[in-house]
């Protein structure tokens, strides 16, 4: 179990980085394809990306702590 905890840490770091990349690409694509819905409006995207970046950093940090065996009991 301790090994699973440790190596899953890498998965969380990768997921954190991937989620930011996907979010930014999706934002650019949806803002570019203009329309009346919220998903085509840049304001929600700016708010979401701004608030999500520190969360993604936190997720990567969680992965780092897991990899460093900080969650071993």
């Amino acid at each position, binding site marked *: 179990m301790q090994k699973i905890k440790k190596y899953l840490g890498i998965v969380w770091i990768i997921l954190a980085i991937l989620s930011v990349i996907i979010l930014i690409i999706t934002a650019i694509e949806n803002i570019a394809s203009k329309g009346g819905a*919220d998903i085509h409006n840049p*304001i929600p995207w700016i708010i979401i990306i701004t608030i999500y970046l520190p969360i993604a950093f*936190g997720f990567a940090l969680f992965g780092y702590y897991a990899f460093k065996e900080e969650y071993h*009991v």
Partner: protein
Amino acid sequence: MQSEKGIWKVIAASSVGTLIEWYDFYIFGSLAIIISEKFFPPENTTTAFLATLATFAAGFIVRPFGALFFGRLGDMIGRKYTFLLTLIIMGGSTFLIGCIPSYQTFHFAPYVILFLRLLQGLALGGEYGGAATYVAEHAPEHKRGYYTSWIQTTATLGLLVSLVVIITTQNSLSKEDFNNWGWRLPFLLSIVLVLVSIIIRLKMKESPLFAKLKTEGKTSINPIKESFGKRQNLKLVLLALFGATMGQGVIWYTGQFYTQTFLLKTCNLNAIQTNTWLGVALILATPFFIFFGWLSDKIGRKIILLTGMLLAVFLYRPIFSELFSITNTKNKQEVSTNIHISKTVVLNNSADSLITKTTTTNFTDNTVLVETEKYVESVVKTGNNQPKESKKIITLDSHYKWKIIGLIFILVFFVTMVYGPIAAFLVELFPTKIRYTSMSLPYHIGNGVFGGLVPFIATLITVMPGSNYLSGLWYPIGIGLICFIIGLVYLSNNQVKNS
């Protein structure tokens, strides 16, 4: 610890205040359409921008900041006065929204509304952690789950109260009176509710655990630094967020709000049936918040939280698919179709008119489908037969009532499993001196950001190529699954750090 009689006063004072805060927060959302007509005219790009900010910023940005700001205050000066302050800010802001003249007479109205809405988000961010901490610190350790679960019912009951107040106001007034001034009444009523709650809360004493820390001079000087600057505590904040509140937030939001949107917009079920049946399911499921809080004292918080998440992950698609199937008219046999065309509405400043085509279809199971299409006459004459507006409303026969209520009940039942024990779980994860700050942030990121994003991300997924009516569920399913794995691997069933 508190006597049995005393604890109920504590629970009542905390729960009533938190319920009122939720009520205040929800009425803005429930009356969003009329607020946008009165204060944010869409033809003006600045006001449209402010409306978007009011919708998104209050839920996403401001709530976590409220958690930090009031959490810090609560760990420094005490729980009682901090969550009294959040109540005053929330009640005052809500009351003032009901007093502001409309955009036509007061052009600064959108800015004032945005400011008040942000204050509401800030206050909500500070309220929950205070109420949960206050109750938990009065409760005996072996009954924390049970006593704090009463606070957990307030989010659902706040939604119910807001719906009841709005529906009662609408039914008591003519449509014209409600649109002119009646919509202000639910906002103005807030001041009465808040005053009553303030009087109750003023009579309460400070939490015994915090009072003891204060007497001993052991309160935190800088709770934010201690909560997030020290690795020992920061890693617990991250664990609380990614192993519990993130999944709990999406399941809470999907069960209570996405279900409503799905029935109204995807299934086209009529609003009265949707809201009434949802209301019945909420009432029936609410006692389970308390049941699972109580059960978590017996068998642990983790097992209940994770079981709720896993059930949601596996059963969301079959349940939503069944809801869609019941309302899908393609599965039904037509009896008769009646088409009615009217040309009554004359568009402003022209001789043009709007043609309304209403098609009513009856089915063998007594389902009625009403399709309304509106065409602009001058556009039709150019050969373009695309309707300007198109709307479908399905009214189901009453024999479907309990089946739909049952399915919604199951969705809310998952909410009660993940939400009932969460306050006790969060409170027990952190030491008393930084508890308010440490628990508030993961709670509001989990619920405000991850939960609040459910409608936006779900809409985003459903417009992607190859998606269908169930594709929006991949977001709560995915987040729920990641949270389940993290919770399963890293959380301990008795992660009590109570000091």
